[in-house]
């Protein structure tokens, strides 16, 4: 009888078990993708050299230098950026019950990129530790404008309307960013943010964003159960005794930090935060205690591979990573929009 009950419970809560496999296997796959990404590129380096570069670094070997100074920070940067976008997207989707929520589609990324342009124009040479703060504020600015415009309309904030507002605001902010870039002649500096993807990532950048990333992820995990409850609807969440105001506020801060951090590394890349949470939900179910870590792994995986593809498609030139991800993202977006924006 006892055993039967146990079995029953395992069945009822089977998705966490699957989730554990996916997240565990995901880390292994991510590690594999990272090794591959470090070794492949404009100059191919075999795995043995990668291994020795990591564990027996020899500054006189050029390949070791390439790996240490260029490839490793780049790949780690790509993984972090993927985590950030994907987790911010899943938190947004959970809290707002908007299946089209993504920091790119809702204007956060464009806002962050805009303030980065402002920062470069007016405070050139500012240390990256401060630059990233501009990015956070910019993400908040973008979100505020989009939600402000979205809520003007009487019928309220429907997912599609928010995305439309996001597209309009993003277009405006990108145009302004370009204007600033032209006027202050900082196009070179900014090009790195818009097209360069993660190629410019250095250890010094990672040193700055990693603490933010870790803090945001810890808070996201603490918040995850409350996000699940919020995803049942505001009234239900209040009825179940959740402090919805507080959860939303903290969640919003986490989203801004994650999106802002990611944009400060890679630029305004959309769709990672849209695709990955949906994929995670399909795999691990609807509990954000599982969706958030699963999104982190899958997001990292997606961006690492996208960045690898960006290097391999037309070497030695780099294909913009944002364009590559959009190749996946746009059809997916159209599919979601056709479904009428239902969260399932």
């Amino acid at each position: 009888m006892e055993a039967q009950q146990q079995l029953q419970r395992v069945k009822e809560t089977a998705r966490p078990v699957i989730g554990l496999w996916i997240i565990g296997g995901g880390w292994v796959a991510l590690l594999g993708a990272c090794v591959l990404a470090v070794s492949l590129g404009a100059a191919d380096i075999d795995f043995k050299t990668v291994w020795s570069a990591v564990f027996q670094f020899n500054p006189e070997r050029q390949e070791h230098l390439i790996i240490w100074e260029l490839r490793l920070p780049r790949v780690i940067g790509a993984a972090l950026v993927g985590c950030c976008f994907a987790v911010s997207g899943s938190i947004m989707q959970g809290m707002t019950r908007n299946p089209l929520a993504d920091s790119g589609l809702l204007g956060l990324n464009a806002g962050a990129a805009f303030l980065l342009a402002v920062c470069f124009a007016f405070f050139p040479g500012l240390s990256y530790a401060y630059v990233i703060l501009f990015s956070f504020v910019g993400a908040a600015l973008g979100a505020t404008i989009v939600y402000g415009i979205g809520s003007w309309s009487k019928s309220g904030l429907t997912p599609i309307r928010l995305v439309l507002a996001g597209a309009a605001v993003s277009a405006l902010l990108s145009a302004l960013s370009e204007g600033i870039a032209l006027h202050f002649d900082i196009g070179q500096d900014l090009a790195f943010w818009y097209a360069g993807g993660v190629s410019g990532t250095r250890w010094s950048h990672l040193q700055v964003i990693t603490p933010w990333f870790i803090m945001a992820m810890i808070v996201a995990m603490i918040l995850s159960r409350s996000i699940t409850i919020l995803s049942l609807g505001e009234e239900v969440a209040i009825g179940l005794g959740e402090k919805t105001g507080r959860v939303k506020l903290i969640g919003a801060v986490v989203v801004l930090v994650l999106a802002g951090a990611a944009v400060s590394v890679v630029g305004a890349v959309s769709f990672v935060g849209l695709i990955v949470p949906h994929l995670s939900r399909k795999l691990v179910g609807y509990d954000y205690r599982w969706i958030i870590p699963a999104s982190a792994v899958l997001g990292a995986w997606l961006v690492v591979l996208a960045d690898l593809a960006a290097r391999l498609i037309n070497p030695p030139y780099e294909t913009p990573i944002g364009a590559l991800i959009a190749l996946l993202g746009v059809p997916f977006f159209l599919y979601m929009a056709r479904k009428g924006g239902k969260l399932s």
Partner: protein
Amino acid sequence: MGALEAKKIHVGYSQHLIIEDLSITIPAQKITTIIGPNGCGKSTLIKTLARILKTKAGTVYLDGKEIHNLDTREVARKMAVLPQTAQAPGGLTVFELVSYGRFPHRSSMGMLKAEDYDYIHWAIEVTGLGDLKDRSISALSGGQRQRVWIAVALAQGTDILVLDEPTTYLDLAHQLEILLLLERLNKAENRTIVMVLHDLNHASRFSDYLIAMKDGKVIKEGTPSDVMTCEVLREVFNIDAQLAPCPFSAHPICFSYQLCKDVEYVYR
């Protein structure tokens, strides 16, 4: 002292007040039903009692304490709420959704304890969802979904249940099943039940206490015999009702009705 009390509450959305200066007491361990025409503020009232809406002025008391000063999680252990338009992400299974009813009781780790499983299984059984336990919500009919939400509220294991139109979407037999279940929870376990119902006869038959509202005001409150009268129904719904005792409960029910022709006259 009532289980829930509203004292001189004012409630509304932005500029427009829906309820002005309303005071009521929901008797403990009784079934209380709020009735009234569409847009009379009954949903607003029940949401305010359930602390989903905040008052602009006045206070709601739960067991004599100001509800907004209590820890909301503590409130959730005493009072469960079924909102009118609850919608869950479609891919959740019935079991998963019902298990969230235990949210206010769970430890910070969030693991379900044996007691939680007992509550969840009980809630699923009494709402007749045993066979659908592992089905995803998106595969259920409207009536089945409604029963799942009732199961969520039951799994919360509270002394007070607040339900906004629990019988919507349900066919006749399922409506009755839910109401009989609520009656059983009230009679056998002394739970306090407050709900909004559209069906006057159900309201009268199953309630100990009725509150009739119109235009944000309480027109009449009391036992079904006090409230289900021709005069009250005329004033509240603009209908001329033909009333007779219900063969099951002896409370008055309306077996047919006509729109008032002389509404204007009655009001003057």
